[in-house]
């Protein structure tokens, strides 16, 4: 039977003691990956994995990742929304691993939106 080892969890808990829990509202950026059927079929899980890996590798400690349902733009999936503190939210469409890495580097970390992958303004519809 494979289960998590209690001592591994305790070790992580000890090493993180005193750091803030980002979910309690102190994050600088939030990335939401859209996970409706259309998104999942188009590769949304790979996008989540790319972001989880990037956060781990960069030891990023001020970004939270979340998922939400379909955003209604099924033909442009996979999609994600990036919200950086003090900047307007940006929806990115037709994502793949490389685009996601670039957006993470330049927008999420660097604060500079990647216009070429963004949903063009005004084209947003709800169905």
């Amino acid at each position, binding site marked *: *039977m494979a289960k998590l080892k209690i001592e591994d*969890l305790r070790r992580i808990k000890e090493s*993180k003691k005193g750091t803030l829990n980002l979910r309690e509202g102190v994050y600088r950026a939030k990335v939401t990956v859209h996970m409706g059927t259309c998104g999942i079929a188009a590769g949304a899980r790979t996008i989540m994995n790319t972001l*989880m890996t990037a956060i781990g590798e960069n030891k990023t400690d001020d970004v939270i990742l979340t998922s939400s349902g379909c*955003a209604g733009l*099924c033909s442009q999936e996979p999609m994600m929304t990036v919200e950086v503190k003090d900047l307007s939210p940006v929806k990115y469409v037709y994502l793949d691993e490389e685009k996601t890495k670039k957006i993470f580097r330049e927008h999420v970390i660097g604060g500079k939106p990647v216009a070429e992958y963004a949903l063009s303004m005004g084209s947003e519809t709800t169905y």
Partner: protein
Amino acid sequence: MEDLSLHLLDIIENATAAGATLVEIGVFQDSAENELSIKVRDNGRGMERDMLAKVRDPFTTTRTTRRVGLGIPLLEQACHEAQGHLNILSEPGQGTEVTAVFRVNHIDCKPLADIGLTLVTLIAGNPDVDFRYESNIDGEKIIVDTREIKTELDGVDITDPEVLALIRNLFQKRRVNSSRHTAGGRINGEIED
């Protein structure tokens, strides 16, 4: 949808969208019996009888963003392709249980593929929802319960990359013998059986 782990992710997104706070997942494969079943039970808002009756129809959705819902019809199609079936039980206010059954040796049965990635994706994307995952794939068992993990972490975010990596590692094929040790306690130890 390429594989069953993606269908699983999709069907659980229905549960979280229905406001579930606990999702219980079971994956059981017995190749000798030619059977694979995937069960997802949630405590979300459930469905009314007439909704339940038509949920397999792609033109059924409570989405406001578009007029078709594809998740359940696609899963049912995957079941039928592998000579299996899909069962849905639901009670308004109680929750929903979806069971997908496949003939695992059927040539058109999609592979399970990366269930571990599906599970960490769910946990990372829905940290406030609890997941209890249990699988028995031809005798190889895995259990993950986020309630136990959260208790042990005592306030440290379960989406911490190190925690997610531990969870994913459970799904990597075990190294022969090297993890063959026994430890006491409930969440303790990778205990080979």
